[in-house]
């Protein structure tokens, strides 16, 4: 035996095939777009238009005091929609707080998707029914969950993939690192989608990382990294679909970096003028995901004014319904606070629940 045969010297994986493209991958406006399925493009368009309207409506609801806070994904709709549509019904989605649009695009009632941000409960939808984990606020902590779920599915011979979403800032967290490492070691069927929207609240990407790109981080763990134009919905959808398919077939995890931009402030409570130039925002407005797709569709004769109007009308109907239902006060049952802490409440919780019931009763009497 020589040192070359021992664990520390084991043959290394060839890094070259894992490296991302030098430039973000694009489809719209390129010759390759001609091969795209018109039906898929139509679906993506309808969802993008709806998504844009959803973001505007949710932001308006914060101004009316109907949402406690809203982290908007305006400008990032292509990533949100592509993530939802790249999954088949049995796959799992692991969203962050900014990803309510992906949750809605996957079929969850917008009111249920916004429950966390309205504040009447933490998770408004049934994660098992929709196969969507709760919206995760502690950055990157949802990523190891996706790995564990994917790993468990693989152990069970169940062809299920998990798609986990995180922001550029979240890639600096330890859980990002640990999740990617576990995923690669276990060859778990999981896809990580980083939406690089340029900022973590106010901190720009340059202060977050010295990596060549975020997609390059994949290479260090031994998985492929893919770099894609996050405003090109067809490209994001294709890259994610391929990665999900590969994962499901046992090919292991992929890290996808989608380069995009947060057009709105971090949340409605943030003032973005403190840390960025309006000219930068304008540059990204000129690279808008909805317009990029509409240009392609129009050029190929797949979108006329009537079809566009139909999409807008459908989006408006969704917004009107959301507005109306969000203007109803949610029904609150304070005693529910004591439910679901444990399978069976402890004696102390039973006593505290009784105390609260008595307080509520006294309130009603007075």
């Amino acid at each position, binding site marked *: 035996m020589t040192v070359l045969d021992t664990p520390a010297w084991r043959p290394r994986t060839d890094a070259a095939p894992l490296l991302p493209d030098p430039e973000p991958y694009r489809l719209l406006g390129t010759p390759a777009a001609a091969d795209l399925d018109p039906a898929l493009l139509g679906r993506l368009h309808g969802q993008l238009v709806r998504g844009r309207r959803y973001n505007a409506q949710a932001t308006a609801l914060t101004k009316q005091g109907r949402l406690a806070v809203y982290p908007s994904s305006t400008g990032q709709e292509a990533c949100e929609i592509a993530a939802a549509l790249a999954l088949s019904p049995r796959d799992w989605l692991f969203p962050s707080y900014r990803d309510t649009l992906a949750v809605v695009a996957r079929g969850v009632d917008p009111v249920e998707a916004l429950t966390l941000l309205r504040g009447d409960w933490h998770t408004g939808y049934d994660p098992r029914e929709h196969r969507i984990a*709760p919206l995760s606020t502690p950055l990157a902590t949802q990523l*190891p969950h996706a790995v*564990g779920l994917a*790993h468990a599915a693989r152990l069970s011979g169940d062809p299920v993939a998990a798609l986990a979403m995180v922001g550029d800032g979240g890639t600096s967290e330890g*859980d990002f*690192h640990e*999740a990617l490492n576990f995923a690669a070691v276990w060859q778990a069927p999981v896809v990580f989608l980083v939406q690089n929207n340029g900022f973590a609240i106010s901190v720009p990407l340059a202060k977050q990382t010295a990596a060549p790109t975020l997609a390059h981080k994949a290479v260090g763990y031994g998985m492929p990294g893919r770099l894609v134009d996050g405003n090109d919905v067809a490209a994001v959808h294709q890259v994610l679909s391929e990665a999900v398919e590969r994962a499901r077939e046992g090919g292991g995890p992929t890290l996808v970096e989608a380069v995009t931009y947060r057009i709105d402030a971090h949340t409605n409570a943030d003032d973005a003028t403190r840390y960025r130039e309006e000219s930068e925002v304008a540059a990204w407005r000129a690279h808008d995901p909805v317009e990029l797709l509409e240009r392609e569709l129009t050029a190929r004769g797949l979108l006329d004014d009537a079809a566009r109007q139909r999409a807008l009308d459908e989006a408006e109907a969704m917004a009107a319904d959301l507005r109306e239902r969000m203007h109803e006060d949610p029904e609150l049952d304070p005693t529910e606070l004591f439910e*679901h*802490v444990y*399978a069976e409440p402890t004696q102390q919780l039973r006593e505290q629940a009784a105390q609260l019931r008595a307080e509520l009763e006294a309130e009603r009497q007075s």
Partner: protein
Amino acid sequence: MTTATTAADRAEAPSRKPATMAQALNQALRDSLAADPAVHVMGEDVGTLGGVFRITDGLTRDFGEDRCTDTPLAEAGILGAAVGMAMYGLRPVVEMQFDAFAYPAFEQLVSHVARMRNRTRGALPLPITVRIPYGGGIGGVEHHSDSSEAYYLHTPGLHVVTPATVEDAYGLLRASIASDDPVIFLEPKRLYWSKADWSPQEPSAVPPIGRAAVRRTGRTATLVTYGPSLPVCLEAAEAAEEEGWDLGVVDLRSLVPFDEETVAAAVRATGRAVVVHESSGFGGAGAEIAARITERCFHHLEAPVLRVAGFDIPYPPPMLERHHLPGVDRILDAVGRLQWEER
């Protein structure tokens, strides 16, 4: 750990013979793995090595790498992955190598494990058991002797269980793994090699989590304790007989749920109580226990409830740890201060 089998042993084939707490824990893991295909053991060095304390000895050999898995070395990743596995329907049993090395997993524990059931209105319970060897008394160098129970018991949504006997090590670990709630299972590492007559062939019944055990009934004062301090309290109770004190000893077995009824009944019977634990006193489990005893038993008390705990210092280096750990003398000293003269 293995005791040589003599000819006489084989001839008599006694069903009960001295077993260590480590063996009982290993048997509990084996029996859980055999009973339920959803159970998966995972952690650092739990596979080929059998864990640094050998608690998982032979499990990978007997159940395969998929059921007892050496993970990458990252505690948040281990626990985070366990969350996802539990979401899928598995029943992960995570081993943290030492008390102080569980801290990297703290965010996963507090922000997800403890509250997933609640935040999803019961849709996603997480039946995860986190085994943590804890406490001092083994001559460990820095970071190998922490008593971290207070961090966990202050986190709603977690059960905190700690066995003090060989029999309970088996029974409580089986119960913890079978529980649909997340359990922090604190293993008093200095009791790993403690022995008792116990048979892996006829293991003890699985006790429900949340019942304290009265280890000794007494008439003059009650010691309330758990985990590594139980043997010390029993020794103190024996020594106290010479002073004419008849001490009762309650072993909590779980800090959450806290068995107030058993504790209150034992304290009312004597009118005096000392809470004993190894971790630092300030803000520790003893503070909560003493407060509850006072609230529940005030009119039965002849003296303030006292605490005997570790000092409020970072855990000492091994050559000094005996000064930190509550011993028999310190316990008897506290008992002596329970206002006997004013009776």
